[in-house]
């Protein structure tokens, strides 16, 4: 029955892609697109301006400049090493190319050359990654150029080159790992070797595998011909990966196609919870079939709180090992950033807040699961707020070992000084818990509200929708920031010569106060909203009664 001419098939693919592009352009809502560009311009430009203003314009001292020149390539190479690790791991898990689900079924199962069919999606992936990397690198480069020798334009160019190269390393490593079907354990090992070796280059000054990549970023100051080898390496990975495109696994493409489409939609909806869930699915990160330890039913006999407590622990004790390692790394990062604040880099507490927020989204999984199953929660004979607030207990306790990791990391980053032990231990848990509270706010804010009209936001003018969207994204980070900036208290006490431990205790109490407020908000939110709504309805009824009687 088969009687086909393969060349006709590829012509069809080209024709239909062109036609679909025309359809898309025809269906594009230009006003909506322009509005998104406007929003991006306002917030993106504002962020760049804020960062630019927070960086002083006077040139760094000669000693600092010499330090940048000698250690810069290794430190910046570390970022490329992380990109390499992300690339090989992503490739082993089926990245970096993502097709539409229909393309997998109709194009990949058609008798046409898969390399030709996959060429365009792969080039698009590479192009968008390189463009993003170049833009980010260029912006950061010009900021660095304001304090280092060399013209701003040259620094913009070298930053863009470094960013583009970093992106090419990521995409090339992913393509190679995927097409060569590198097993996940080997990909992780390769990535860790790269990162560890480069970290050794940073710490002990040995030659690192990504020193040349890092050195590209300093071309705004001085150009070294040998650095071109880094570009050649990245290019070689991309070329070989592209040449092997037909070896991409259809299994991985099929699995990713649906997830990536959902992920893009979730990103456009600023739905962080879904983004994280889908990222886990993309990485094939599943909960363990059985918890590490199963809690006895004794806890459940203590009634409602005990039942929720036990359910929470059974969820937390199913976290796979990579997730626990990731959370420990986040906690360690928070500790290091807090130590940087103490050492004088004040804006680092914003980084702590963001990491705390991310840790919150990870650790508050039992709460997230309950919010995801909102219908089930609403069917229970308990107040929703009471149920949700009980879900905070087990994750809060589960943060304790991570707080210890953060305390140790902060202590080490402060030079393992004996005086730093007590404040680090006092502040670690409240800081982590407070940071995670931002995650709680984000999760609860995304919870459907059965009492409110779903179309309420549709009647808002576009300017208000943009504003509320921005608030929705920023507010949880603000909550995390409120609880992580308390590290400024012991720093100030140290500068004044006061008791650092006493200041750390005051800071910890401040963080815990915010945590308590958020807990009460979770518990009483629905009741308060109902009261406000009833009050508003009463007001409206009274007004209309007044009008009708007049």
């Amino acid at each position, binding site marked *: 029955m088969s009687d086909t001419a393969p060349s006709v098939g590829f012509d*069809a693919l080209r*024709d239909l892609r062109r036609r679909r592009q025309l359809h898309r352009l025809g269906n594009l809502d230009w006003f909506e697109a322009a509005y998104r560009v406007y929003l991006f311009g306002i917030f993106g430009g504002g962020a760049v301006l804020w960062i630019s203003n927070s960086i002083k314009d006077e040139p760094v001292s000669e000693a600092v400049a010499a330090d940048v020149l000698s250690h810069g390539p290794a430190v910046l190479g570390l970022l490329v090493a992380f990109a390499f690790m992300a690339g090989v791991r992503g490739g082993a898990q089926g990245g970096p190319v993502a097709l539409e689900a229909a393309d997998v079924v109709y194009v990949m199962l058609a*008798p046409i050359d898969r390399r030709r069919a996959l060429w365009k999606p792969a080039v698009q992936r590479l192009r968008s990654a390189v463009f993003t990397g170049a833009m980010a690198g260029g912006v950061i480069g010009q900021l660095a150029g304001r304090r280092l020798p060399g013209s701003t334009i040259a620094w913009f160019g070298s930053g863009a080159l470094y960013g583009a190269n970093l992106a090419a390393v990521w995409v090339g490593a992913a393509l190679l790992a995927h097409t060569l079907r590198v097993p996940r354990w080997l990909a992780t090992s390769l990535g860790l070797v790269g990162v560890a070796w480069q970290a050794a280059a940073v710490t002990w000054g040995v030659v690192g595998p990504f020193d040349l990549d890092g050195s590209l970023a300093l071309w705004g100051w001085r150009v070294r011909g040998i650095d071109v080898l880094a570009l050649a390496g990245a290019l070689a990975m991309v070329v070989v990966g592209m040449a092997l495109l037909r070896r991409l696994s*259809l299994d991985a493409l*099929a699995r990713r196609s649906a997830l990536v489409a959902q992920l893009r939609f979730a990103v456009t909806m600023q739905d962080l919870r879904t983004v994280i869930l889908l990222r886990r699915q993309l990485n094939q990160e599943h909960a363990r079939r059985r918890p590490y330890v199963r809690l006895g039913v004794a806890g459940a006999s203590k009634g409602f709180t005990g039942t929720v407590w036990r359910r929470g622990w059974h969820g937390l004790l199913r976290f796979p090992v990579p997730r626990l390692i990731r959370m420990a790394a986040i906690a360690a990062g928070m500790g290091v950033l807090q130590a940087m604040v103490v050492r004088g880099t004040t804006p680092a507490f914003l980084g702590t807040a963001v990491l705390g927020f991310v840790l919150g989204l990870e650790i508050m999984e039992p709460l997230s699961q309950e919010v995801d199953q909102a219908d089930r929660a609403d069917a229970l004979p308990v107040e929703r707020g009471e149920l949700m607030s009980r879900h905070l207990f087990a994750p809060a306790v589960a943060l304790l070992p991570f707080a210890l990791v953060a305390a140790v990391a902060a202590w080490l980053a402060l030079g393992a000084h004996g005086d730093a032990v007590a404040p680090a231990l006092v502040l670690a848990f409240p800081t982590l818990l407070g940071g995670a509270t931002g995650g709680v706010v984000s999760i609860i804010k995304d919870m459907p509200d059965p009492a409110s009209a779903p179309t309420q936001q549709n009647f808002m003018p576009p300017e208000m929708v943009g504003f509320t969207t921005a608030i929705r994204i920023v507010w949880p980070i603000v909550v995390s920031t409120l609880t992580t900036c308390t590290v400024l208290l012991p720093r100030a006490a140290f500068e004044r010569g006061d008791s650092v431990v006493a200041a750390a205790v005051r800071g910890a109490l401040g963080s815990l106060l915010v945590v308590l407020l958020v807990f009460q908000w979770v518990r009483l939110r629905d009741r308060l909203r109902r009261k406000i709504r009833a009050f508003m309805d009463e007001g409206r009824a009274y007004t209309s009664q007044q009008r009708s009687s007049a």
Partner: protein
Amino acid sequence: MTAALSTHQLAKDYGDRPALEPLDLEVPEGQHVALVGHNGSGKTTLLRMAAGLLDPSAGEARIMGHVSGSLEARRSLSWLSDTPTFYDDLSLWEHLEYVGRLHGVAEWQGKAEELLERLQLSARRDDIPTTFSRGLRQKAAIALGMVRPFDVLLVDEPFVGLDSNGKTTLLELLDEAAQVGATLLVATHELAFVGRVGRLLALRDGALVYDGPPSEADVHTLVLPA
């Protein structure tokens, strides 16, 4: 004679959970086979590996003697999924054109019109199939699976969502494909369909527990989980 579909020690596991035990199977050209089993028995896993959409953990599957997923295998194989997917910016007619031409069919229009007519989709040919109901989507997927030539047709749960007319038309189309020599492997829970085939395969918890004529099998027992 080359087997239309053959598997050699084909197996799939998801971590510590086996989805399909090592399977050796030969389906001769022109045979009409039903594949039954309880939910999670491994039917879809077997079909997806045969189609080249799922990487086996071990072994291999071949279509008309070619490794599944190879260009030659793809030329011979048509795959009808239980979860039809469509482009959200192409009409049904454009889908038919696309699939027909991708498979090198120059005169696809006549076949496409006939399929739409028989599946009662002619009035919807210019609509976007992602907006269709479950049943209409299934019919659209059937049209797309049959608008192109094939030697082997793998079908996963084709009757789900179809009304009685749709089921009748699908059975007619499958019979017609069998009459012109195509090999059919249909995974189904529709036990009435089993009586129309020449061979029955039953999977239970990933293992083949029956391979023979349907007349000699107690199908209701075979589809029960262990």
